[in-house]
């Protein structure tokens, strides 16, 4: 399953980058439709909002996207394929919305590349999936603390790893893989009320 731009926009709207105005109720099966329509509305807002944002991705960012995709690939279930457009769209809003976050991404990638070079001799995005998994398993990534203003690795855990996990598991794509189309954090409307199982 390829993670589309629309999926990313759903994640964005969970993070509130896209407009949260406009409303809907999730009612039975129509719910999926309604949530999806809202996501489309959000598309316009998310892409229109940062007026001075470049339309083309600059070269140095392309590589930060590569790193984020490479990280998302090992964090997300194998069934999903976090495309560049998912991650780019998700990060896009944040990078241009908040300078501070762009700084966290840049320095986080530097830390990650340092760990990857120590472990497997290359930058994180250039490693095979197995190598990326071992970088995570053999360091404090994931198992270590996740602190927004902590040490280098703690910040990678908070601003990169957890951010990508939040994006996925607060969106309907991640939610539906565990049986909920409106996971907590996602503004998927209210009132979803399927009948009781017989």
């Amino acid at each position, binding site marked *: 399953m390829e993670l589309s731009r629309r999926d990313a926009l759903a994640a964005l709207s969970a993070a509130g980058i896209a407009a949260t105005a406009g*409303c809907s*109720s999730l009612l039975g099966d129509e719910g999926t439709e309604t949530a999806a329509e809202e996501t489309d509305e959000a598309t316009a807002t998310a892409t229109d909002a940062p007026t001075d944002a470049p339309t083309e991705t600059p070269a140095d960012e392309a590589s930060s996207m590569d790193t984020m995709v490479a990280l998302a690939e090992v964090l997300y279930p194998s069934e999903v394929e976090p495309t560049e457009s998912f991650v780019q769209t998700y990060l896009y809003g944040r990078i241009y919305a908040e300078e501070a976050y762009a700084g966290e991404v840049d320095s986080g990638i530097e830390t990650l590349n340092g760990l990857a070079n120590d472990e497997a001799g290359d930058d994180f995005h250039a490693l095979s999936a197995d190598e990326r998994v071992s970088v995570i398993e053999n360091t404090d990534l994931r198992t270590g603390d996740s602190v927004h203003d902590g040490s280098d690795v703690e910040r990678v855990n908070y601003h990169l790893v957890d951010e990508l996990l939040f994006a996925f598991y607060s969106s309907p794509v*991640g939610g539906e893989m*565990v049986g909920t189309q409106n*996971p*907590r*954090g996602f503004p998927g409307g209210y009132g979803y*009320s399927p009948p*009781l199982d017989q």
Partner: protein
Amino acid sequence: MSSTQTDDTDKTPVEDPDVCVVGAGPAGALLSHRLAKRGHDVVILEAGPRFDMEERVERMKRQIHPERGVDEIWDMGGERDEYTVSSDIPMPLNKRRAKGVGGTSLHWGSVVPRFRERDFEMESRHGVGKDWPISYGDLRPYYAEAEQEIGVAGPDEAPHQPPREEGYPMDPLPESYADKLYAKAGDALGIDVQPMPMAINTGAYDRNECQGHGTCEHVCPSGGKYTADIHVEKAEQEGATVITEVPVQRLEHGPDGEEITEAVYKTPDGETHRQTADVFVAAAGAYETPRLLFLSESDQYPNGLANSSGTLGKYFMDHSGGLVVGFLPGLEHSTTEYGPVISSGVFQFYDDDEAPTGGINMMLLNGAEPPIATVAMTSDEIGDELLEKIDLQAGNSIGLTLSTETLPREDNTITLDRSKTDNNGNPVLDVDFSVGQYAIDATEKGVSEFTDMVEELGGTVVLSQGTHTLNKADEFIEQTEGGYHPMGGTRMGEDPTESVVDPTLKTHDLENLYISGGGVFVTGGASNPTLTIMALSLKAADHIDEELQG
């Protein structure tokens, strides 16, 4: 914390206002709005900042992130918010209040049942506590007005509700999947499950409609949940002035000790200002209001302002209660995807003549598990293993949050801890609260009824904590700890030797000082307190208005 920067708004006093309100939570907000609307010149002094609506999503993410504390969500903590707890139950106060425009309603769950008729007459009916000097009937029109002001979705026809003249402003929230499970269990067991009155906009109100984030407590990113900043802003539109980040240090009275003349406040850059007014209202919440009055001691009031009765800080109450989580494996749908966290409840055991007589308010949860994003972030796994782990637990929980009645006791107190000071050098408050057997009995009853419901549905209780397991208080998860519903400490009464305020909420001792908030409650009931706080504050506004007219 970076997101709450000191603003550059004017911090100087307003010239000759009619009313000065200390605190911009629900108790200050509704009263200020009503008085401003009636043409009075109102100034609100608020200790905390004005939070930016755009930051709410970031705050919601703090709530979901496992490494961020509940106190971090609304920037609580540090020297400004120091306190001492001497209670027999953990009370993490900085996770139980917010300082800023909107006050603790920024945190709240927006569950708004009225008090029951019996709550005002516990002494006459059951020989416990003390009767209020006002009845449910006196407050009934104000309840209706408060519900109208904040927008409540609730059931017009439901059992076990106090009498009401008019319907709720909005239809109840739709029945959730979990509600259907509760109703099924209830049918089998003879327990009435009914819609819970909630201050959540289902469409009819002039604020955003609920969007279903499901994070109502502690942050509603969309504004569908009512928060009191709404009435602060409405008051400003009617001409009121709000001065933020100016904690009031003390209230000062004139030479005869009969009138407050000034509220003395500090600005973030350390300046001291004095706000005059004709009438003063202390609405700083039930923790800070007694502290402010103690800090305002004077030669005439050596034991604290408005404390000639000696009851200031006494008869403090918090609701007792607990959290029960049931696991129902193999459900076809997720219990959590509904949106609002609560949409139904059980009030059948609230007003019960059978023992235990303590009020029982059972709030039924639309899922009682952490958000899946929280589980994802907490875990060490990645990829498919992570997915599997989340899938194992997701969507199969139901739960109960219980609020039960504690009795007003003289030895449950808010006092000053003179050994510890805040950032302005003022002694901090010390809360000393013991739950008591009366409340434990009611909690056990509620827990047992809910346990039956879980078992009726073929599930298992996986967590059951609260005042019924007080001996294991050190094992409590954060949600189970106390301090959510502070009440008492500045109680209401006709007799100036036994109470701090009269039935109009004016202090017995000072003719232009009122107290608005849960502190004035005589008994605590089991209903969440804020709708009653709001009704009382609208009533007090009417009295103040009359006085200013005359």
